[in-house]
């Protein structure tokens, strides 16, 4: 008899214990740790605009979020790796991190081909990605996933900022020098659409290999075309080389050189004498207001360089992720994504809301590079010429090809 009673008791306790009432009382954190992975280009073409600075930004966010490095009573851990701008290295690392190392979310992902590769892996494994480094609009358009947020900028916003403003100045004939890979093509595509919409013409395109050292032949072709604008649809070291060589060949005497994507780290590399007068669009400038200045100075202490918009976005994405995990009581992907998309963001660095397609829609800034005489202190590089509202900086949802948007 006693055995029967014990067994019955055990069964009853087990059934009670596994019933929903008990299951929900403890917060669910997978693997008992909240792990964030910074996957970036640590030593290549993009290491200055993202790279080690992104790792520092993520660490700052964790330290600022919680003094003892915990959320919901569980440890927050950070891992980082170099994807060398190669899609296969990125995908394999992401797979290993998600499968073996319990990583919950991967951030930064500079370079569009790596971002897309990792987003695909994340969707398969139902884990998150917060893209800050890559820029192709496709990330939240035809290639969108339900587990991704695109934080800093995209080619649509850049084109609508820079291209629109320059065409308005009357410079209607454009020649593109494009880096021959996904991102360059996206940048050229979005910008040409804006040029044509503003009544302008694209006189020609030169596709340069990516990455490339010597742009002289393409610059000469641009010169021969007689266009008003020589637009550079490339980024990082490629842009720096093209701008330098354009100046060497005297292109900027008769034509306007427009880099479609440029970061403050590039201006620092080029120096104001070469870069002065150029127009560009960015999502963040350290000298914008007191809040951004305060944060940027703290960043500068650790990185010895002022933050680019990618660094600011990594900080913001990690900080908001942790806050959301705290608010929802779990690190479950679906729950966290839902809360992220439902909560407006205003963290002193960015202000806006995450849309259904995963795009974090916030303002962008049209910037002009100062003349050397006007710069009052180191890193005082830009005039803010215009603020582009969030609605104009992202592709309208009605035109979106994202599967998450009902059209």
């Amino acid at each position, binding site marked *: 008899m006693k055995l029967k009673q014990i067994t019955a008791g055990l069964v009853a306790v087990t059934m009670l214990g596994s019933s929903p009432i008990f299951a929900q009382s403890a917060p669910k954190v997978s693997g008992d740790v909240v792990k964030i992975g910074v996957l970036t280009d640590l030593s290549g073409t993009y290491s200055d605009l993202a790279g080690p600075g992104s790792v520092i930004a993520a660490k700052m966010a964790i330290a600022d979020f919680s003094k003892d490095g915990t959320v919901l009573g569980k440890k927050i851990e950070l891992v980082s790796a170099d994807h060398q701008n190669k899609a296969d290295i990125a995908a394999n690392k992401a797979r290993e991190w998600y499968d073996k190392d319990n990583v919950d979310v991967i951030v930064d992902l500079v370079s569009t081909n790596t971002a897309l590769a990792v987003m695909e892996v994340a969707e398969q494994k139902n884990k998150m990605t917060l893209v800050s480094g890559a820029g192709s609009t496709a990330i939240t358009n035809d290639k969108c996933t339900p587990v991704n947020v695109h934080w800093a900028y995209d080619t649509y916003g850049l084109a609508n900022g820079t291209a629109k403003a320059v065409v308005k100045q009357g410079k209607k004939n454009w020649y593109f020098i494009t880096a021959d890979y996904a991102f360059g093509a996206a940048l050229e595509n979005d910008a040409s659409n804006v040029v044509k919409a503003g009544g302008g013409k694209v006189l020609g395109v030169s596709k340069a290999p990516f990455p490339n050292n010597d742009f002289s*032949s*393409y610059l000469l072709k641009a010169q*021969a075309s007689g266009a008003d604008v020589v637009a550079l649809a490339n980024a990082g*070291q490629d842009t720096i080389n093209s701008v330098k060589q354009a100046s060497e060949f005297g292109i900027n005497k008769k034509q306007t050189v427009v880099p479609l994507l440029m970061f403050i780290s590039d201006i620092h590399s080029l120096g104001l004498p070469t870069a002065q007068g150029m127009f560009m669009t960015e999502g963040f400038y350290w000298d914008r207001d007191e809040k951004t200045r305060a944060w940027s100075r703290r960043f500068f202490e650790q990185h010895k360089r002022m933050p680019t918009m990618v660094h600011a976005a990594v900080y913001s994405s990690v900080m908001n992720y942790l806050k959301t995990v705290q608010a929802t009581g779990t690190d479950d992907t679906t729950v966290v994504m839902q809360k992220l998309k439902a909560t407006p963001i205003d963290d002193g660095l960015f202000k806006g809301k995450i849309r259904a397609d995963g795009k974090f829609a916030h303002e962008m800034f049209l910037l002009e590079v100062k003349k050397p005489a006007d710069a009052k202190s180191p890193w005082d590089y830009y005039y803010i010429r215009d603020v582009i509202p969030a609605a104009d900086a992202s592709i309208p949802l009605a035109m979106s090809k994202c599967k998450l948007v009902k059209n």
Partner: protein
Amino acid sequence: MFELLGITPQGLVAQLLVGLINGSFYAILSLGLAIIFGLLNIINFSHGAQYTMGAFVAWIGLTQISQWLGFPELTMNYWFALILVPLIMAGFGLILERTMLRRLYHLDHLYGLLLTFGLALIIEGLFRDWYGISGESYPAPELLQGAIPLEAIGIILPKYRIWVVAISMLVCFSTWYVIERTKLGAYLRAGTENPKLLQAFGINVPLMISLAYAYGVGLAGFAGVLAAPIFQVNPLMGSNLIIIVFAVVVIGGMGSIMGAILTGLGLGLIEGLTKVFYPEASSVVIFVIMAIVLLLRPAGLFGREK
């Protein structure tokens, strides 16, 4: 003026000029490689890394030495670099040859290739670790800054690039002259054909071979200094060039110095033309040519069948 296939004659000439500039680099690099590969039968896969190293040494001399030694006045400017860097690189080459390459002469050529390939990886990896990949800026010397407007062709040509063409041609043709027309060159050529016989005549053949290798490496360093103001000093500048330069030497013909020079220049021109009409193919056109030449004329265009 009329337009041919979407480009004016002026545009074409401008592109060919740019092609000629690139061709000069190919010529100097393949010259060094042709001496090493063609005459000495050493497959020097580290030629590209030695070119990169030359550029870095020039840059370090200009910007870093003063800090290291604490003498702000002590900098190696461009003109000194043109002479010092090749000497330094030649010394480096001499050490390499004496300590490592010498041990492999009795083996299959494959091992020389693998050894120098490994050395190239080490050199590039080290520079990448020390200086990152973004590339360092190296300004052209003041005398050569600025540009000359060529109204007739409607372009502005930077003075520095004109200088590069001129000095490369000078170095290339003087080297050719020494090897093909002087007694020293004759010894060198004889030494690679029949070292034992030459040694029997009392000529120190191993020393000659070491010095020839050193000279080839010095040429790579020289090309590096020339390249620094144009291409930015970065650890990968050589690895992009190495297989192209090998292809040039193979097409030109082993053992033919003039072949390497002319093919280098020719390739620059062909690449320039390809960039105008079908830019995507500009990086592969050399290999198409190499495959064709190897299959039809295995000794190369100017080579002598050994």
